[in-house]
């Protein structure tokens, strides 16, 4: 920062202006969700992309069977067409994406494609990850015009591997929410069932992959924000060990738990993304300097560790907490699938886990209140226009208060106030301190569980999904959907959700995917990938495609 300070003003003035950022507006935002296709006056429905996996796409682009520009155009067309129905993205970066694709093609033409592990792969990035070439809003009014001017490390690594960022995904404001409904930019729908929410907070990232608007996406997971929407949308979503993927360039929510995670349709796709994303980053002080394993190779291994069957632990309390018989059915079937195919399974008691939810929300609120104190309407972000102030002394205070009150949405304000309350009045009982102690107890309980098993299996979310109109408006009820995911967040463990089944309640309702979660000890991402990959080899659920978002509203199985 010394540099600009020491330069004479004239030189600064002659510095070229930043290019205006060219982003395309979303397709007619005035068209409401659920508008029948015949009223939309739309072009013919785009075809499904002809790629069976990320590896297939990369091979086609690198062998020049298809150019990255062609691939990008194909996905941009889909994005433009279906976005109006899903609300999955907040900004389509068409020009930047096509320029990046052109550069990837050029590299391939020159034969410099050894590093292009994700050549031409269209990705959508959650809008709380900074991007150099377009604004980053965290779906908040307070950052509506924020242009970071740099890439988050995770985004930078994807781009370096040849991936093309085609859009920024919608999210709950600052990643705070479990529904996808707390965004200033509208809620995000589930492509499997448009009447349902996509989940949150990385709802847009999940919906975009599920509807084949991109091949991979990045989300962030604080208390389950990658796993929960990935589960609702029938995807594979990985929350890596805390510190494995750099948080540099992530707009902070709760620093001690925030983690960037990839989502994709298949386990191998997510493993391929991890191959690029993982690794030490000096710009993140919590980044782990550990050697990266071969995530892709792990996907091909059997359910055997050191010549012994993989031991899968099953938390009894999680099973008891499920009230939906369909969900229990999928859980039990998944258990028997693993047991029938070489793994050993055993029920474990994890009584501490039920305290995790309260501990998580207290800790996250305190950290969020601190992190969000930086938005004051002065240095960057939105500034409220002040009415005539009554006196000088009120000007600054009013400026801060009104900028923040107008800039933050209701859920964010609620969490800030809760965080402020815990720090100011919580001393009597030291609630925050006790929450931090519960965190220790939970980490210990996981450690004990991993003495008896190698990996834990439990549902990702205690429900199959919720309809938009049934989204709870009492915060505490909504928080309940995080009950199975916060444990791994508090303990900083790797956790992965995969599509373990599909259910529907009646013949006329669309199918809903059901996700199961695998939790492994620290830095054992390869283990969760391996176990989930075995499940994918045993079943065909991951090959099902949502159809509710299509013009021709067919159910995957027909009726």
């Amino acid at each position, binding site marked *: 920062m010394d540099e600009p300070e020491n330069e004479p003003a004239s030189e*600064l003035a002659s510095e070229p*202006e930043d290019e205006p950022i060219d982003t395309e507006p979303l397709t007619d935002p005035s068209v409401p969700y659920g508008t029948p296709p015949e009223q939309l006056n739309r072009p013919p429905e785009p075809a499904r992309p002809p790629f069976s996996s990320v590896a297939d796409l990369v091979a086609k682009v690198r062998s020049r069977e298809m150019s990255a520009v062609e691939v990008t155009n194909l996905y941009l067309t889909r994005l433009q067409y279906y976005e109006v129905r899903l609300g999955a993205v907040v900004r389509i970066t068409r020009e930047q994406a096509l320029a990046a694709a052109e550069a990837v093609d050029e590299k391939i033409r020159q034969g410099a494609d050894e590093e292009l592990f994700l050549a031409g792969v269209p990705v959508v990035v959650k809008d709380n990850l900074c991007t150099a070439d377009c604004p980053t809003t965290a779906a908040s009014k307070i950052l509506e015009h924020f242009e970071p001017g740099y890439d988050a490390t995770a985004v930078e690594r994807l781009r370096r591997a040849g991936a093309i960022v085609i859009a920024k995904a919608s999210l709950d404001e600052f990643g705070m929410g479990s529904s996808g409904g707390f965004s200033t930019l509208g809620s995000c729908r589930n492509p499997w069932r448009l009447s349902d929410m996509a989940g949150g907070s990385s709802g847009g990232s999940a919906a975009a992959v599920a509807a084949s608007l991109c091949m991979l996406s990045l989300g962030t997971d604080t208390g389950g924000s990658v796993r929960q929407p990935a589960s609702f949308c029938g995807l594979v979503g990985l929350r890596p060990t805390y*510190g494995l993927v750099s948080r540099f360039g992530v707009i902070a929510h709760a620093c001690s738990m925030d983690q960037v995670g990839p989502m994709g349709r298949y386990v191998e796709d997510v493993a391929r993304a991890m191959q690029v994303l993982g690794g030490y980053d000096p710009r993140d002080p*919590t980044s782990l300097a550990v050697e990266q394993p071969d995530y892709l190779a792990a996907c091909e291994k059997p359910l055997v560790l050191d010549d012994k069957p993989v031991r899968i632990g099953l938390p009894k309390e999680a099973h008891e907490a499920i009230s939906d018989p369909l969900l229990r059915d999928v859980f039990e079937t998944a258990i028997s699938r693993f047991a029938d195919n070489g793994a050993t399974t055993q029920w474990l008691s994890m009584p501490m886990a039920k305290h995790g939810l309260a501990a998580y929300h207290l800790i996250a609120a305190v950290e969020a209140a601190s992190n969000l104190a930086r938005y004051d309407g002065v240095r960057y972000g939105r500034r409220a226009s002040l009415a005539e102030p009554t006196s000088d002394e009120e000007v600054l205070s009013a400026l801060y208060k009104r900028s923040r009150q107008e800039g933050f949405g209701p859920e964010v304000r609620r969490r800030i106030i809760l965080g*402020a309350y815990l720090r100011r009045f919580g001393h009597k009982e030291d609630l925050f301190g006790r929450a931090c102690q519960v965190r220790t107890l939970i980490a210990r309980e996981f450690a004990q569980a991993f003495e008896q098993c190698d990996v834990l299996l439990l549902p990702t979310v205690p429900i199959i999904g919720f309809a938009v109109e049934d989204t709870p408006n009492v915060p505490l009820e909504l928080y309940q959907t995080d009950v199975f995911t916060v444990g791994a967040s508090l303990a900083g463990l790797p956790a992965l959700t995969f599509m373990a089944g599909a259910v529907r309640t009646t013949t006329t309702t669309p199918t809903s995917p059901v996700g199961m979660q695998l939790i492994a000890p620290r830095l054992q991402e390869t283990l969760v990938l391996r176990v989930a990959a075995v499940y994918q080899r045993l079943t065909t659920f991951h090959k099902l495609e949502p159809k509710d978002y299509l013009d021709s509203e067919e159910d995957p199985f027909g009726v």
Partner: protein
Amino acid sequence: MSIDEEPYKHRPLEKEPLFDKEPEAPKPPPKPRAPLVVSAEEVLACAQWARLDPSPEEVEALRQDLSDVLAFARSFDELDFTDVPKTKYGAASPCPLRGDVVEPQRAFSTLLNNSPASQDRFLVVPVVFGGASDNKDKNDGNSADGNRDGSDDNADSNQTAEQAD
């Protein structure tokens, strides 16, 4: 294995009759909320501290929401916290720190463009001096520094925007 057969395993054919239309499930009665233990004054004090300006209705809603969360945390009472250390950080070793060296920064104009108002190489903020000083909140005075020294303020902005911590 065919895609067509597999998912039917989980359909509740044997357990429940299939309906032509989704049955109208009776809505469960709303769950009782926790008794109010947070006063409006406390909420307003927090709002003042957190620099928010909630409406009277929002204050009432916040009292209930905070009371709910605090009641929820009552479950901690059944735990034994003797000799349990507090986990406050997510970081674990090895997390080496980077060297303390100056690295190239982003273009000054990019940083300045993110401020709500700027002129030349300075941030523009409303006039806050000239009358009675605000003793209630000391931080207000500090932040007003931006008025005098644009580049200092920008360094600060750079740090907050760049580093997730």
